């Protein structure tokens, strides 16, 4: 029995040591206030979630200009998008196209 336990422990230790550590996906926020998107936090990676937080009393959208995502961010609420690809993505609000922003996503 002790041999089995030792083998499992060794295998776990070996596995743990051999697999490179990848940071857990995180959630970052972009504030919407006074009909404008706030700054985009740096360091967003593939798999991370961007959450838009709408402080306005108007509905807005976050809409990728290249078709990557299109979510409604209702007045006083939040909406999330998981970033699936690396790159620099311009986005805007479909309801008020003068509101624009940019999300940079790096590889994992």
């Amino acid at each position: 029995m002790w041999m089995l336990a030792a083998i499992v422990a060794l295998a776990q230790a070996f596995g743990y040591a051999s697999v490179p550590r990848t940071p857990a996906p995180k959630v970052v926020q972009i504030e919407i206030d006074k009909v404008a998107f706030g700054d985009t936090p740096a360091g967003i990676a593939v798999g991370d979630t961007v959450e838009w937080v709408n402080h306005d009393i108007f509905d807005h959208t976050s809409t990728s200009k290249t078709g990557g995502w299109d979510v409604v961010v209702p007045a006083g609420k939040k909406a999330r998008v998981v970033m699936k690809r690396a790159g620099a993505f311009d986005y805007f609000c479909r309801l008020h196209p003068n509101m624009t922003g940019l999300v940079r996503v790096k590889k994992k």
Partner: protein
Amino acid sequence: MLFRHVSTAIAVLAVSSIGVFAQGAKPTDPQIAHIAYTAGQIDIEAAQQALKISKNKDVRAFAENMVKDHTQVNKMALDLCKKLGVTPEDNDTSKGLAKGAEAKRAELAKLAGAEFDKAYMANEVAYHKTVNGALETVLIPSSSNAELKSLLQTGLKIFKGHQQHAEHTAAMVK
């Protein structure tokens, strides 16, 4: 008469404002509040007409957003007037706007289908362009109260967005 040059056309808002106010007779805050509220109300009514007549999903989505946004801005305006103890004061510019809008609604009521969609969207582009011009050149610079000025500035940002949204939708129904 402060706004004697106002006639039925909405476009006259900017022209008369610039012409009259250039002589130093700028509108008062209660008059500005009334003009801004009236301009918003007109667009809500135009959108409600569009929602009754249009079957185009993009036009309807635009109209629905006009109802929502202008209702919110007007609510903010009324709340601010209440807070400041200001009573919006009717004036010739507001009357001219209302009269022009009534004529436009009657004109649009005779249309249906794609003809209506085109005419409604074209008017929304022109209307927002004119109102935004008046806000930028006359109403915002003339407002004395800082909170009223700030509200008008927020309104202008929203309405500039509407103008772009209207231009985009107008291009789709051509």
